[in-house]
């Protein structure tokens, strides 16, 4: 019954509409959505959060919860209608013919069940095979997803594996019954870049090996370019453009797609010459969608009376049957016209050093068991950090989770004190002064913008009050009226309307909250601002605006920006100098150009190769790091990167395993911590090349 012959598309979605029903109203989440997935094809579904892409995935699985309902259209899987299929038949298809991979691997595995059981369950339920057979299959699939020691993995619980390994298990689980369609819902968002690259590589290989069709949901255009054949761009519940990846990337025919590409930092972008262009306005709420084109109010090509007259259907792009767009003015717009780039002021000259860090070390003592003691182990979070940051400079600190970049930020802020070394901040040594003992002036001069704007604002205090509170703490302004005036100026500075002072944080969008966070950081005229992944929790179109804002403020005030990030695209776009960290060590430091071109530290090389770039002209060298990031509790001896380094064999003897390499001066201001010889460094090829048009 299940494997009936069917040679049409694997999945056909036609005019699908989905609504969620609350007590107040019906909220349409997806409207008039169509797409097809052919056998063996990978379809990308791209859009910002809230655009309905995950809802489409859940609708295919018919798992919309109690409030969600499919209100129109059809979903056919191998020719069988899913929207009206009875529950029992649906259960037959789920997991065996359509499988899903989720965003958070840890949460999607049962914590109280061994991996083996969770994997074996799938074929036992669907194919009725014996336990022994299921176990053999599980071993095979675990080996297929390139996990070491499958026997041991099957016997472990999810929490005993790392995030990357867990995601491989989720993938293995999806492949247990060799499904015809695999739905991947942001499968790598929670992972580090190098781990992400390995997982993406794996998914592509497995797709080829098993001939599985894929529906790849992501907000990351670069990732879609690397994995998919075709792409559908969604905006506010509608598909706005669909076509082959090359067509959509190179010959986009919808203003939203175009705006999206202009707002992400591609290799050619530059903060002064070719700045990013943020999409103006905000994402409409589901019940406040405009008449006509949903993107109308934010669109540069908007024509009143036409774009907002009636619902706009999908039109095929002339001369290309497989490419269509939901734009009524498709044939009138000159798509190749270069963007009217806003001219930014010249960059301020870089001044004297304001922050000097010399041989900074931060060790944590970790007890084996917090309650009953046990042997203390030392976590070396920062190992001999040395660098300086100058006035009006943007210094990016790059590295994956656990590399010690946030620990450094904590020591600088005074939330922790250093184990050894010196931090000279505006002429004062602060490494041993915790924040309680710092003067209000010192605190005001070093401020931080945090990663998650949703958690860093007090939910029960108005925005204005929170900024005034910061002013009070820093001792700025003599009277309440003065402080209020300053608060309103700060809102102007971060380009928020003044009436936002009376709003509560919950009434703000993510980008607006982050602006409040920035206003607070600059309340005391900070000289140094540590921005810890300030845009990684935000949607792409908002990222550009917030990045832009930070740059503008920096230009005006001459602030030093320490930009902590794992996203090399944005780092390349906005920073003057880059510092690459790995397991507590600075492995490379130099100007942005020096770091992004050879010679590289082997880790920088791998990191650059791992970052997906949403540009079809870019050619990348393919380097996949094997293995996991070692734990800082038990770092490898010698060079921290030696366990994953592909250049290790070029170093004679076992130098890499026995001694930490010295910091070597490559060029003026460019240092690399590596044992490789000059000749080998000279041999390195650039990872990213932009092909001529």
């Amino acid at each position, binding site marked *: 019954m299940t494997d009936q012959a069917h040679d049409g598309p694997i999945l056909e979605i036609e005019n699908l509409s989905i609504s969620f029903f609350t007590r107040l109203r019906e909220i349409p989440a997806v409207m008039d959505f169509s797409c097809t997935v052919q056998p063996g094809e990978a379809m990308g579904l791209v859009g910002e959060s809230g655009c309905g892409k995950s809802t489409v995935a859940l609708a295919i699985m018919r798992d919309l919860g109690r409030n969600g309902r499919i209100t129109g259209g059809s979903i056919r899987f191998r020719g069988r209608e899913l929207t009206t299929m009875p529950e029992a038949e649906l259960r*037959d298809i*789920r*997991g065996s013919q359509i499988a899903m991979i989720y965003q958070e691997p840890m949460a999607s*595995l049962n914590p109280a069940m061994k991996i083996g059981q969770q994997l074996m*369950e799938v074929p036992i339920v669907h194919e009725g095979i014996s336990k022994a057979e299921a176990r053999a299959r599980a071993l095979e699939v675990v080996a297929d997803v390139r996990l070491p020691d499958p026997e041991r993995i099957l016997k472990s619980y999810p929490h005993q594996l790392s995030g990357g390994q867990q995601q491989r298990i989720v993938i293995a689980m999806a492949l247990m019954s060799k499904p015809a369609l695999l739905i991947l819902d942001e499968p790598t968002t929670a992972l580090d870049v190098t781990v992400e690259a390995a997982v993406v590589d794996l998914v592509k290989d497995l797709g080829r090996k098993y001939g599985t069709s894929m529906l790849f949901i992501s907000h990351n255009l670069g990732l879609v370019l690397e994995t998919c054949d075709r792409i559908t761009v969604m905006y506010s519940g509608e598909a706005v453009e669909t076509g082959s990846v090359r067509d959509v990337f190179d010959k986009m025919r919808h203003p939203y797609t175009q705006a999206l590409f202009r707002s992400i930092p591609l290799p050619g972008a530059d903060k002064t010459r070719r700045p990013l262009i943020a999409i103006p306005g905000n994402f409409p709420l589901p019940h406040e969608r405009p008449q006509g084109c949903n993107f109308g109010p934010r669109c540069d090509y908007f024509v009143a009376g036409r774009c907002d007259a009636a619902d706009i259907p999908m039109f095929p792009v002339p001369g290309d049957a497989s490419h269509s767009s939901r734009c009524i003015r498709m044939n009138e717009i000159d798509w190749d016209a270069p963007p009217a780039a806003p001219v930014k002021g010249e960059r301020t000259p870089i001044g004297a050093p304001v922050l000097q860090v010399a041989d900074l070390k931060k060790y944590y003592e970790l007890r084996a068991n917090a309650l009953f003691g046990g042997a203390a182990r030392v976590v070396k979070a920062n190992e001999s950090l040395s660098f300086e940051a100058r006035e009006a400079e943007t210094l990016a600190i790059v590295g994956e989770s656990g590399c010690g970049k946030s620990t450094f930020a904590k020591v600088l802020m005074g939330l922790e004190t250093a184990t050894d070394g010196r931090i000279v901040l505006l002429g004062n040594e602060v490494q041993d002064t915790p924040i309680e003992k710092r003067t209000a002036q010192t605190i005001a001069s070093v401020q931080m913008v945090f990663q998650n704007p949703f958690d860093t604002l007090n939910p029960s205090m108005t925005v204005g009050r929170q900024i005034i509170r910061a002013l009070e703490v820093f001792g700025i302004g003599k009277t309440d009226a003065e402080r209020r005036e300053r608060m309103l100026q700060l809102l102007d500075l971060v380009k928020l309307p003044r009436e936002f002072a009376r709003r509560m944080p919950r009434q703000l969008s993510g980008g607006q909250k982050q602006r409040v966070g920035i206003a607070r950081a600059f309340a005391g005229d900070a000289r140094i601002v540590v921005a810890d992944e300030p845009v990684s929790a935000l949607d792409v179109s908002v990222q550009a605006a917030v990045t832009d804002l930070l740059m503008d403020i920096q230009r005006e005030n001459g602030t030093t920006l320490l930009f902590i990030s794992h996203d090399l695209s944005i780092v390349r776009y906005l920073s003057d100098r880059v510092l690459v960290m790995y397991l507590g060590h600075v492995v490379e430091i130099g100007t942005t150009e020096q770091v992004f071109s050879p010679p590289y530290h082997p880790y920088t090389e791998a990191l650059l190769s791992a970052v997906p770039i949403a540009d079809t002209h870019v050619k990348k060298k393919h380097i996949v790091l094997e293995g996991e990031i070692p734990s800082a509790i038990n770092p490898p001896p010698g060079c921290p990167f030696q366990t994953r380094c592909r250049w290790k064999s070029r170093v004679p003897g076992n130098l890499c395993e026995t001694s930490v390499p010295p910091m070597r001066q490559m060029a003026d201001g460019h240092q690399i911590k590596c044992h490789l010889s000059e000749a080998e460094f000279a041999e390195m090829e650039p990872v990213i090349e932009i092909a001529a048009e």
Partner: protein
Amino acid sequence: MLTFLVRRTFVMLLTALCLTFVVFVLTNLPPNLEKLAKTEAGSRISDAEVESWLERNGFARPMLLRYGEWMGVVPGWRNEQDGKVTGRCIQPGQDPATAPRFCGVLQGYWGFSTFFKAPVGEKIAYHLGLTGILMFWVMVVMVPMALLIGVLAGMREGSRLDRTLSTFSIASTATPEYVSGVLLIAVFASSMFGLKWFKGTATGAMNDVTFENFALPVLTIALYGTGYIARMTRASMAEVMTSQYIRTARLKGLSFRTIVLRHALRNALIAPFTVIMLQFPWLLNGVVIVETLFSYKGFGWTLVQAAGNNDIQLLLGCSVVAVMVVLATQLISDIGYVLLNPRIRIS
């Protein structure tokens, strides 16, 4: 695991030591002793006579010393008067020469109950045993019933089944034992409704437990506890059912039954397990009302008698036993928690 157990046992003993000292001090406050002297030697004796009685019976010495005697780490007091030697460790009629020097809890001597005129150890063992039987049957009835109700209610949050079961559990836990007990007796054991199915007293059960004489007290206690545990289980189950791994299981194509039994149950039982283990101390001391209501002379009843009659040694004994039971069940609870939850492993 072994070091964990050793540590926990050590901590437990330390806690017990501190708590017994507190109880010892409180039960041996001067007014209590004076009252004791008056009940033992006649209520009309003068203050001087009270003094001398306390002196003679070893009560007039420093508190810490007497605590040591009671523990059995300090030799018991001896008094020689009129050529006759009396002492803490000398039983009436015993030859002082053969009596042991130390006699305390460590030697298994818990003192002599002034109210029951019997050794405290013996008395507590007997009544604790009776309460133990009651507790056992309460647990047998209460735990499966509560978990079943909780799981059924929590697996489909907001459904009609959930609302029905939730109403029942809230009602049962909102009804104190003295209300439900009286109601149950009135309905099932009195001539009011003519349903004389069960006996309204459990005195007979002290010798021979039958369904007839034991059903009502067990039900009374179980009903109260059921609602509480069921509510906890429901909340835990409802939370587990919305978690992502349940969605994973659903989208693997498992049936609802398999999802509940294999994926949700174990995770949902982690939280209620702690609550169930907390029921032991409550049962031990909280059953006083039910024991009194059904004239079942268990541990709670003994405690009330000891307190009411200023029976210092018995009161002290009861308190120590209660403390030990609480600590022991909490140790078991912690071990069980580790077994249920693989994320907490003690290496």
